[in-house]
């Protein structure tokens, strides 16, 4: 399955869990995208500036809240703010804490809402659906 003709769209996966990074990037590669990984917000910023990805998936519940900080920075920079960002929210189901997401919402007034959500555990079809839709829409 290939996304579209032309150059492959680039996706940056930001997650502190290396295996999730691997999983998502391999899933994207397998479905016709180019994918790269970053372990946290600090690592992600130079990668965004260098590679100008077409989409970013971001795990918010990373140490130091670097995910939130990274998102703010992206959305406040005119040259980067149009890159769609999909939140990969840690846990939303029973037994988990969505504290990070809630904390994010509480400060949301300063930043635009994310372009999409993916809940863990990851459902490949859902991930590809959300990402595919966003990438078809973007120029």
């Amino acid at each position: 399955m290939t996304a579209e003709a032309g150059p492959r769209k680039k996706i940056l996966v930001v997650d502190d869990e290396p295996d999730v990074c691997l999983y998502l990037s391999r899933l994207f590669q397998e479905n016709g995208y180019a994918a790269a990984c970053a372990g946290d917000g600090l690592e992600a910023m130079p990668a965004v500036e260098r590679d100008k990805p077409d989409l970013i998936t971001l795990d918010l519940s990373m140490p130091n809240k670097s995910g939130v900080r990274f998102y703010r920075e992206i959305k406040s920079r005119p040259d980067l703010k149009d890159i769609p960002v999909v939140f990969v929210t840690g846990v939303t189901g029973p037994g988990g804490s969505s504290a990070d997401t809630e904390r994010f919402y509480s400060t949301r007034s300063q930043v635009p809402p994310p372009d999409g959500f993916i809940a863990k555990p990851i459902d490949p079809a859902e991930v590809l659906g959300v990402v595919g839709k966003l990438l078809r829409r973007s120029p």
Partner: protein
Amino acid sequence: MAEPRWPEPGAGTLDVRALTGGRLLDDVPCYISIQDRHFRILEANRKLVEDFGEHLSERCYAVFKGRVEPCPECPVARTFQDGQEHTSGETIFDRSGLPHAVIVKTSPLRDPSGEIVAVMELFADITVQKELEHRLHDSLTRFHNLFDVVPCYVSVHDRDFRIVEANQRFKESFSRRLGGFCYEIYKHRKEPCPACPVADAFADGHSHSDEQVVFDNAGRQLHVVVYTAPVRDARGQITDVMQVAADITEMRTLQDQLASLGRLVGGIAHSIKNVLEGLRGGVYVANLGFRDQNQADIQTGWEMIQRNVDRLSAMILDMLYCAKQRSPRRLPVSLPEVTRAVVQLFAARSADAGVQLAAEIADNLPDLLAEPRDIHSLISNLVGNALDACYTDQDEQKSSRVLVRVSRQDEQAVIEVADNGTGMDEETRGKLFTMFFSTKGASGTGLGLVVARKVVTEHGGTISVDSTPGQGSTFTVKLPLGGPA
């Protein structure tokens, strides 16, 4: 009646009526009798005759008490003796044998020469009052018994918050001495509490309730539910406030345990989900490799699976460790040796992260009596955390360092692990030792410090933390050199 009741005046006998004011006596609403020196009744008023019968010339002790000889303590005799009035409490029996509680007052009757010729005895019937007194006493006793046996702390507070009355239970747990200030006694405060249900009850005359934490006389913390109610005098004025406090400490503890059990289950689910994610990823990647005969994918996938299986087993071991009650062995452990081994273990990792890791070890440390594995895992945990705190620090200017200091303080070994990393805010510090609480996202299990604390507790020691956000943290562990008590 054939014989005249009264000897005629002037007949050489005593004219009693002249001495006492005649028929006036009959109208007095109490018993009055007049006795001579031999306790013979010379005169009785109408009420006495009605209730006790006609007994002129009979001995008062026979008439009133059914006795055959004078009473041992007789106010009539005493008045004859000293010419003074006397008062005593007696029980006398009327014609139908019913007892009357009376207060007796005697006074001398003198002839014109001043000689005491008779004694007037006045009986005030206080049977009803006595009865009331008994009942009052009974109900007071019952009230006091209730007060004491009720399974709550009962205390009565005056307007100045002094405890003026308290039940046995209160006295046993808080203070035997009455009159102290409630806020001093069980709140360990120097001044009244800002929100006070006793003050509220004084202010509005209604009942109030509150949940409070108080300290008993052994310094233990108790959770109590407190009810207060105003105590009013006969005019309806609030004089005191009564407080009833029920100890709900155990219930609170159970509630906390249930809540932490809930968090525990949630934490387990969360951690397992993370591992599961890694496993799914591994399976996905490995499957791609099998499909495409791609050795690299197969290898990556299997590595992912391997990693997460390892994580899961480590997690389960930690969880089992936390769940198990056990007492550690008491083997000689050289703290300097273990510390050096841990520093060695982390040397490569700290160097990679640009963190300077050092140890300061006192040379006067005798061997510790402890479980060697536990001490190793304790120090590794603390050092690992300290390195993480440096690694995640955003401050580029800082030169990160972790210092492990091992020393002796009296009969305790002191292990301090200090870093100048991110530090913690109040909230994080509060949750530190909570299971599955982690600031490290997916890379932490939220069990490290729980295990550390368990090790410390099992060895009879203490663990504390001092931390300033942005400046770093210091964990201090104190272990008794002789091992757990």
